[in-house]
């Protein structure tokens, strides 16, 4: 390892120490707090099985919110990503679109949820709107970055035929970036399901609403019932995600057969 690398590592360690002091990080507080955690874990282990049915339906509502939010968000994000890609537009088009997308991304979904609860009242609809906004900002950014890195050879070859810009987008840019988009949709859906579980904390519907209610009354066992349902759902989504990726993304990128074991 050369001197430059050693200097870089030393600098990173120095920053961690300085920042830890600034944020008042205390390992002693952490160690002393472990017994409190064991109390919560002990209470959470007393799962209330009677609540599984309610938890299931609350989770179903959360999945519906995430599904609508993801699809609508992606539909809005896709044309915006085309306008924000530097290799498809002039500076006068992509720069303002990127600025708007950056502004949308500034707020995390929980802040969007608070805003929409104020606007349309509490409930799942406010949650869906929050998910849409977050998805638009996030997917549009990932997608325009994917568009900018697509192989330039097909773009050049098809451009040389004399096609219009929209034909180039329809026949080259979209198919060439489709695997990236599918990957992002799967990730966003996974993320939005987990996110929708939290939005209930601010009254924007979903399973989080129940979790917050039980935690407020120190009913950790009941809250744990809902958390288990979230955990199982996320595992199932992750499993489906892997299968879809293998079938449509990995295979198309490497041209190889994937066989399920």
């Amino acid at each position, binding site marked *: 390892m050369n001197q430059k690398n050693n200097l870089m590592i030393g600098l990173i360690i120095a920053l961690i120490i300085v920042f830890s002091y600034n944020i008042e990080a205390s390992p002693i507080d952490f160690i002393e707090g472990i017994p409190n955690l064991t109390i919560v874990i002990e209470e959470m282990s007393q799962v209330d099985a009677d609540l599984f049915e309610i938890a299931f339906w609350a989770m179903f509502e959360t999945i519906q919110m995430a599904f609508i939010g993801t699809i609508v968000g992606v539909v809005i994000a896709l044309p915006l990503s085309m306008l924000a890609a530097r290799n498809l537009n002039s500076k006068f088009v992509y720069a303002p679109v990127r600025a708007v997308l950056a502004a949308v991304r500034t707020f995390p979904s929980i802040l969007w949820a608070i805003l929409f609860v104020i606007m349309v009242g509490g409930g799942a609809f406010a949650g869906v709107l929050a998910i849409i906004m977050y998805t638009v900002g996030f997917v549009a950014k990932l997608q325009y970055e994917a568009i900018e890195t697509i192989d330039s050879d097909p773009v050049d070859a098809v451009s*040389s035929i004399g096609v219009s810009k929209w034909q180039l987008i329809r026949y080259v840019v979209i198919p060439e970036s489709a695997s990236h988009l599918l990957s992002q949709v799967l990730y966003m859906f996974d993320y939005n399901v987990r996110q929708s579980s939290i939005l209930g904390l601010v009254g924007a519907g979903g399973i989080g609403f129940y979790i917050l209610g039980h935690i407020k009354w120190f009913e950790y066992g009941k809250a744990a019932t809902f958390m288990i349902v979230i955990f199982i759902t996320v595992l199932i989504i992750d499993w489906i995600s892997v299968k879809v990726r293998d079938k449509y993304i990995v295979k198309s990128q490497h041209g190889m057969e994937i066989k399920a074991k």
Partner: protein
Amino acid sequence: MKLIQMTNPSSLSIISTKKIIQMNDVWTSYDSKNYAVHGINLSIDKGTIYAIVGQSGSGKSTLLKLMNGMMIPSKGTIKVDYQTPNMNDKKFKSMMHKIGYIPQSLGLIKNISVLENTLIGALPRLGKIQSLFKKFPQEEIQEAKKILNLVGLSGKEERKTYMLSGGEKRRVAIARAFMQKPTIILADEIVSELDHITAKEIMNLIADAQKRMNLTAIMVHHDMQLALQYANRVAVIKEGQKILEIGVEGDKIVDFQTGDLTSQELMEMYSDESKK
């Protein structure tokens, strides 16, 4: 391998044909310092096969990009069918469909089928709404299938291009170019990295189409023998300059222009080619 016999240059007959591509003292560079092409003069007859031969980095591919308007010269003039090539110029863009460009990388879209890749050649003839919904007229689909049959890809229309072999991918790129109904074909090393038999099949495919459709084919090669076998004229490019141009008729070299090339340089060049 074909043996080329030299004939007496004084016995050459001059055939007057329409010049479809003309380059006069063309210079161009990828950066402001180094020229990729130095003062090239080319004159290509309509309905002929013109080969450009040279080593990697000699400027062969740059010449093709100058011909289809993907690059513009920093000095000199180019005329392609009386138009100045520039893909950002509306007038030239409207005639770009007449130039079937097959890049070395082929430029196929890997996630769509062989048929869809071929139909891309018909896009300049398709309306906006039809383009948006991928609604190709039945006659265009039939034409694409006919071309795929011609290039030996019948029965593979629905395969995704990433599933094809190297030779098959080249056939798809050729089919896409034929689908444009071109008058000029620009092919950049389309038989490099192919086995001898497949390379010959691909070259025969282009040569047959050139005769049948009276195309002008400009083909970039590494291999001098292959160029002499198929082309009517061969230009040898070295470090961005044309150092030699040969006219070929059947088995005979009928024209030989060395430009500023000394006999010593010519000998060295041939020994370089034979070593490859």
